[in-house]
């Protein structure tokens, strides 16, 4: 018998490895890149990285094919034909930058707000937002408005943190985990790893989701809820817990505004506002003395419940009393909500009982003494091991803000926020509720050749903060911070093109976008968006949106609609910083940030967008980007800025290795060796909190003091959870006619309904405004776990896994409509119609259809060949979704968004499903082929 072939046991197929940060999605894992002869051969997770601790996902491991994709752009392009015709000529960078400087300079010296600068999956919002401020335009935002703002805002206005990357479940201690909503998440690998840990420990995992795929596939219990009704389900849980007295009284009393007194003076301008003492401190009712007292003075003696009359005759109730009055009402009982949300009352009751059991009978105790902000020392950290997390399924509804508030209310009633086993903050959170940054862009804040007095985005607390003129008209092109969407903390990118084309509230001169596929899968109402982008002014013959500058690394659909294209590098060819000033990557155990370093040099004539932006800033002589003698302030590009920029003295984009010798963290002078130190540390920085700082951070004295010193927060003040949200009441009062700043009549009703200071539920608007019998079903999308929107789905490996999508329908529903597996079906909304191929399954709410997001491509884009399944069989639900709601009385069309935050309400979509009569083996609509751009080498 022959011997086995000799096999090299230790082949070395690489010469070196370099660390950097992944960009295949928003998760930002640490990666280790293997190189051979200067080419990338392999990418794996970095074991030392705080985010992913060595693992990688399906996207991350396909990064090589993203980096070498033939759809990469290779040189600046200038449009030469009609917009959208795909006629471009290659130009040199000098010409491109001169042209951009000219276009932008013309705007800045006349009316800076005529620049709309919107970035999509931008991970450098610290820079781009600052650039917009220096330019002087309020018209800036990233894609949060159509992605996550309901999650962020609801959390930041309730407990000073949020789902998504502002916190995470305590995977080590949770015994009961509830996951709300469809879609893969920003915390892609941490959530997977966390669920793996829960499974190993035998914790119970409950998924509340109309669709039983992905994480929900391995849940111990699936609650197949009807889309948009999660708030009712959560409300019924709260009803059950309150009715049984199963709430965490001590934490509610000490660490929330439950006991704060709310003025009861219906019809008056101060109704529903907190009673405050002369020092501005909210008042509470001292139960032992039966008298009002300052919340600063009385802790244990506070009454949590009750309606009281003060000596001066003022009537008031505690916050918790108002909440209990709402939720103890029979209309919130499980029996009352079961039909509407499609969850049996007995299931709701059982889950409520399980929540109470795990929170109060299975508590976790850590032998770690800690001191609260009152100075009281607790011998142990006592945890309520119930953790929750919510995803886009909650966010992307017109009632998402209030629904998300309700989930936080549930967590706070159970005492689980930042308790062992609960939902934990990640630095820089907790922050004051809401963070003390106001948006700028009011009349009187925008001047030619002047920067804005503050950032474009921030957190409003009353109508005074809105960006409106004396007549109440919106000041931003997207109408964020107007009466249409007062708390639009992330802007409303989904409205920019429509509003600019309609010149409502005004026309713009330059639309400047980065990494946002706004003519395709990131647009609501794709067909009209393409029309708006090419619409011409009848009198001048010029485009209504006269100039469009776009930067992207790939030949996306949006590239075809731009006039000037600034080709970006891939993520492996650039410097970047994942900053605490932007969306953090911190862990619950401590703050973290990271960098990207160029693992290889670009082999094309492309430049990193951030460096280009700083270059443009210098050419435009923007303050902060230009020295006193008119030279570029950061001649070394983005990496120069990352190291040397200081937002406030001592605080820059990166928190690690600061100070001239690199020994300081958080605050410290710029360190010229900072990037080198990061690279030596695997391209990240992580500070682990002391054990007594790791939990109850919102009221943990040692943590708050440490965080102040580190520069995360301005002062070591406790972050008292706001169950009753006073800023919402202020808007509601205005809508009821109080105060000098008044909404238009058309807006009053919806503002009164939406701005309820106690978490509430109302039906999604689209369902409300159309005939539900005509459009009886819900349609939602999910991001497939192995892809990240269009950027990932053109990837040579990933497109083999999902090169097209299907419409998934519940078996029973399909059967009732005579639809079989593989049939072509039409899906009709109030706005449009598409044709798609059906696939039947059981694990979906019977009134819901769904598909994978952003697989469909327009023919001729992304370096894909004609006939690619993405364009022939793939489809988008976007064509069915209007960016505007149907007309209301008076003819005004509100945006299809949450009325509080402006969050795009993608998942409110209502449809009618029928078997297609015109099936031809292709999805519909099919748009004309775009002329492919010249592929990169």
């Amino acid at each position, binding site marked *: 018998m022959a011997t*086995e*072939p000799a096999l*090299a046991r*230790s*082949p*070395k*197929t690489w010469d070196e490895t370099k660390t950097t940060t992944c960009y295949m999605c928003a998760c930002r894992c640490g990666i280790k890149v293997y190189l*051979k002869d200067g080419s990338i051969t*392999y990418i*794996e*997770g970095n*074991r030392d990285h705080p985010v992913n601790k060595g*693992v990688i*996902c*399906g996207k991350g*491991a*396909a990064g*090589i094919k993203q980096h070498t994709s*033939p759809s990469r752009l290779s040189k600046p392009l200038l449009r030469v034909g009609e917009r959208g015709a795909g006629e471009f000529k290659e130009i040199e960078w000098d010409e491109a930058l001169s042209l951009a400087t000219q276009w932008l300079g013309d705007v800045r010296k006349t009316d800076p707000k005529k620049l709309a600068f919107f970035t999509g999956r931008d991970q450098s919002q610290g820079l781009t937002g600052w650039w917009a401020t220096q330019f002087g335009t309020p018209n800036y935002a990233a894609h949060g408005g159509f992605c996550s703002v309901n999650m962020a805002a609801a959390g930041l206005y309730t407990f000073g943190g949020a789902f998504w990357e502002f916190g995470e479940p305590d995977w080590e201690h949770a015994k009961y985990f509830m996951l709300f909503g469809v879609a893969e998440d920003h915390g*892609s690998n941490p959530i*997977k790893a966390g*669920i*793996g840990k829960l499974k190993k420990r035998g914790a119970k995992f409950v998924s509340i989701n109309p669709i*039983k795929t*992905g*994480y929900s*596939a*391995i849940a*111990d*219990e*699936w609650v197949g809820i009807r889309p948009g009704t999660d708030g009712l389900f959560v409300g019924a849980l709260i009803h*059950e817990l*309150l*009715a049984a*007295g199963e*709430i*965490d*009284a001590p934490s509610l009393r000490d660490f929330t505004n439950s006991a704060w007194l709310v003025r009861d003076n219906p019809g008056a301008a101060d109704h529903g506002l907190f009673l405050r003492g002369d020092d501005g401190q909210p008042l509470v009712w001292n*139960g032992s003395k039966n008298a009002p007292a300052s919340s600063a003075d009385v802790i244990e003696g506070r009454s949590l*419940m009750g309606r009281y009359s003060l000596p001066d005759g003022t009537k008031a109730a505690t916050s918790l009393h108002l909440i*209990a*009055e709402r939720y103890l*009402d029979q209309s919130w009982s499980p029996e009352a909500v079961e039909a509407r949300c499609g969850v049996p009352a*007995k299931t709701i*009751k059982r889950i*409520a009982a*399980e929540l109470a059991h795990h929170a109060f*009978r299975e508590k976790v105790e850590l032998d770690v003494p800690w001191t609260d902000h009152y100075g009281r020392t607790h011998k142990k950290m006592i945890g309520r091991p119930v953790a929750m997390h919510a995803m886009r399924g909650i966010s992307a509804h017109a009632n998402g803000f209030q629904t998300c508030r309700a989930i936080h209310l549930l967590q706070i009633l*159970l*005492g689980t926020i930042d308790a062992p086993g609960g939902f934990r903050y990640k630095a820089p959170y907790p922050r004051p509720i809401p963070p003390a940054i106001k948006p700028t862009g009011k009349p009187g804040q925008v001047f030619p050749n002047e920067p804005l007095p503050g950032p474009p985005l921030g957190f409003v607390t009353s109508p005074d903060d809105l960006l409106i003129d004396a007549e109440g008209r919106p000041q931003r092109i997207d109408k964020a911070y107007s009466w249409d969407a007062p708390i639009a903390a992330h802007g409303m990118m989904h409205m920019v093109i429509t509003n600019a084309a309609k010149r409502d509230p005004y026309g713009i001169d330059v639309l400047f976008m980065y990494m946002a596929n706004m003519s395709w899968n990131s647009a609501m109402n794709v067909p009209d968006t393409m029309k708006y982008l090419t619409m011409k002014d009848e009198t001048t013959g010029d485009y209504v949106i006269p100039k469009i500058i776009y930067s992207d690394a790939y030949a996306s659909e949006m590239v075809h609609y731009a006039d000037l294209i600034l080709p970006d590098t891939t993520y492996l060819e650039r410097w970047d910083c994942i900053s605490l000033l932007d969306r953090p990557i911190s862990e619950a155990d401590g703050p973290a940030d990271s960098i990207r370093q160029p693992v290889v040099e670009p082999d094309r004539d492309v430049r990193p967008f951030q460096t280009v932006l700083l270059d443009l800033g210098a050419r435009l002589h923007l303050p902060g980007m230009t020295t006193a003698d008119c030279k570029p302030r950061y001649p070394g590009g983005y990496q120069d800025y990352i190291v040397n920029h200081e937002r406030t003295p001592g605080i820059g984009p990166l928190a690690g290795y600061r100070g001239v010798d690199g020994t300081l963290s958080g605050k410290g002078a710029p360190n010229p060796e900072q990037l080198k130190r990061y690279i030596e540390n695997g391209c990240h920085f992580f500070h682990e909190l002391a054990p007594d700082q790791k939990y109850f951070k919102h009221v943990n004295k040692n943590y708050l003091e440490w965080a102040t010193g580190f520069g995360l927060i301005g002062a070591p003040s406790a972050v008292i959870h706001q169950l009753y949200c006073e800023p919402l009441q202020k808007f509601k009062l205005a809508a009821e006619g109080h105060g000098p700043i008044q909404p238009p009549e058309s807006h009053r009703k919806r503002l009164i309904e939406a701005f309820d200071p106690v978490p509430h539920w109302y039906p999604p608007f689209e369902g409300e405004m159309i005939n539900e019998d005509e459009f009886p079903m819900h349609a939602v999308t999910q991001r497939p*776990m192995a892809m990240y929107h269009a950027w990932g789905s053109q990837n*040579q*490996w990933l*497109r*083999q*896994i999902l090169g097209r999508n299907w419409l998934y329908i519940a078996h029973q529903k399909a059967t009732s409509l005579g639809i079989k597996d593989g049939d072509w079906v039409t899906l009709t909304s109030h706005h449009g119609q598409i044709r798609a191929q059906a696939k039947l*399954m059981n*694990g979906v709410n019977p009134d819901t259809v769904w598909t994978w997001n952003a697989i469909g491509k327009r023919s001729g884009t992304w*370096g*894909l060949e004609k006939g690619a399944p993405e364009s022939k069989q793939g489809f988008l639900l976007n064509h069915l979704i209007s960016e505007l709601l149907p007309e209301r009385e008076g003819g005004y069309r509100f945006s299809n968004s949450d009325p509080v935050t402006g969050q795009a309400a993608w998942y409110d979509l209502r449809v009618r499903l029928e078997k297609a009569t015109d099936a031809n083996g292709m999805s519909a609509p099919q748009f004309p082929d775009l002329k492919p751009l010249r592929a990169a080498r």
Partner: protein
Amino acid sequence: MTMLPATTEKKLGLVIDLDTCVGCQACATSCKEWNAQGYSAPLEDEDPRGKDPHGPWLNRIHGYEVLDKTRDDSRIVHFPRSCLHCETPACVTVCPTGASYKRSEDGIVLVNPDTCIGCKLCSWACPYGAREYDVKEGVMRKCTLCVDRIYNENLVEEDRVPACVRACPTSARHYGDLGDPNSAVSLLVKERGGFDLLPEMGYKPTNKYLPPRKRRDQPEEGREALPKSDGSLMDRLFALAESLLSGQAGAR
């Protein structure tokens, strides 16, 4: 060569936890990625930007839906499938050239790409679809259990595991010696009732699968519902205030 070793010193293989796999494809793309530069390089695809992109992948993730008719429940199961490194693999014995072999050291089933003639008979003999033909190179490809990683002294010790195991974010994949009854993987198989695929075919797969756990959506004793008074809103408010005052709230 195609004579199977009577015994192997070890039985290296994988244990895949179907209760934990979320179908993220990390193991599939990591496998493709490692093999595209390692033992199976270059592992290129056909028609990568066109109408019909496909190519050899050594690990694929199936999606099944399992109906439980007894209780009107269904479950999506993500099911990674790769070579099971059988103890008596027919794919090896049918090979006419000896390119396919089972290593006596660790039981790994390999194809020697230098001697494979690309007759594809081994792929016909495998019931598990583990072997995929590489059109560009004219040879058969299969999971190597990352034989070029697991002994590789250029990697730190904890990285000497298959790329799929190294990647898996949910820890649904476990690697070890299934020939050692006391190894962590063997104990896991015992504890969780790990099973073989198509055991009746007699190829004795080394890799094992751990079944999905039972649903936990039925009431447990005493947790059907919380006690609640049937009274009016005022009664309920009063009851809540009482329980808060008495310090009973959340304390039972």
